[in-house]
């Protein structure tokens, strides 16, 4: 697997509503419960609400202070980071935490298939493999054998003397592609002329074509 991109975060905001949950990492920190008092009657509703808010805020602040109380000799909070309240109400609380240095929370990578002779395949996203997404396609090795270069040169670059009057080099190229296609059809081959010109694994078929037609078609360097 080759790594393409690392995802970092310098800070994170934690919004939370009327749910509960908890997690400890390293030494557990004290967690005080936030309790609210109901108003005694309809005349002191606002007083009760204010008192509940004040009590809740103080409790939350104590939790945060206790969480950051563990420090090293230099006075730094262990293991790292800072935490502070940004908002709180009767049904929600929001906190913001910063990280120095930024934490790594993911990466984007890609995989390369290793074919014969150590050739690397096309890069495929790691998430596609992990998610078992179907990866279509057959990895081919580009033909670099002498027969392939000879045949491609014959098809792609016809000599000037091989181009009849009134025709172009492109016309001759297409005619030669058709000649190869006709031979493949005779052989009942399950590939096309482009495959024969470019696929390394079709080297025996190329050799056979040159043996069968090389002299007839004057295929030379």
């Amino acid at each position, binding site marked *: 697997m080759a790594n393409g991109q690392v995802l970092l975060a310098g800070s994170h905001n934690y919004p939370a509503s009327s749910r509960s949950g908890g997690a400890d990492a390293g030494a557990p920190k004290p967690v005080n419960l936030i309790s609210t008092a109901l108003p005694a009657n309809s005349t002191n509703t606002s007083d009760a609400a204010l008192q509940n808010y004040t009590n809740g805020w103080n409790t939350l602040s104590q939790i945060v202070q206790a969480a950051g109380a563990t420090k090293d000799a230099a006075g730094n909070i262990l293991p790292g980071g800072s935490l502070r309240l940004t908002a709180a109400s009767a049904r929600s609380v929001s906190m913001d935490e910063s990280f120095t240095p930024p934490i790594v929370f993911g990466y984007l990578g890609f995989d*390369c298939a290793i*074919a014969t002779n150590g*050739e*690397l*395949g*096309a890069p495929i996203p790691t998430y596609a493999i992990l998610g078992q997404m179907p990866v*279509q*396609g*057959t*990895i*081919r*090795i*580009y033909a670099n054998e002498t027969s392939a270069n000879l045949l*491609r040169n014959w*098809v*792609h670059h016809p000599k000037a003397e091989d181009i009849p009057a009134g025709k172009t080099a492109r016309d001759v*190229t*297409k005619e030669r*592609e058709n000649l190869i*296609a006709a031979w493949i059809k005779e052989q009942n081959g399950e590939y*096309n*002329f*482009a*495959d024969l*010109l*470019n696929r390394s694994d079709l080297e025996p078929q190329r050799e056979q074509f040159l043996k069968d037609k090389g002299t007839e078609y004057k295929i030379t360097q």
Partner: protein
Amino acid sequence: MAVQTYPKVPKDDVGGEVQDYIDAGAKMVTVTPNTDGTTCTVIVEE
């Protein structure tokens, strides 16, 4: 739909290969330069 991928085609040969497969009736040929600077990845969809 058959898909073939040629991971390392020399840049000088890419044009010829693309022409071959287009002439052979490929539905789509995609060429992506590789980071090595000398080869390309050619994906052929037929």
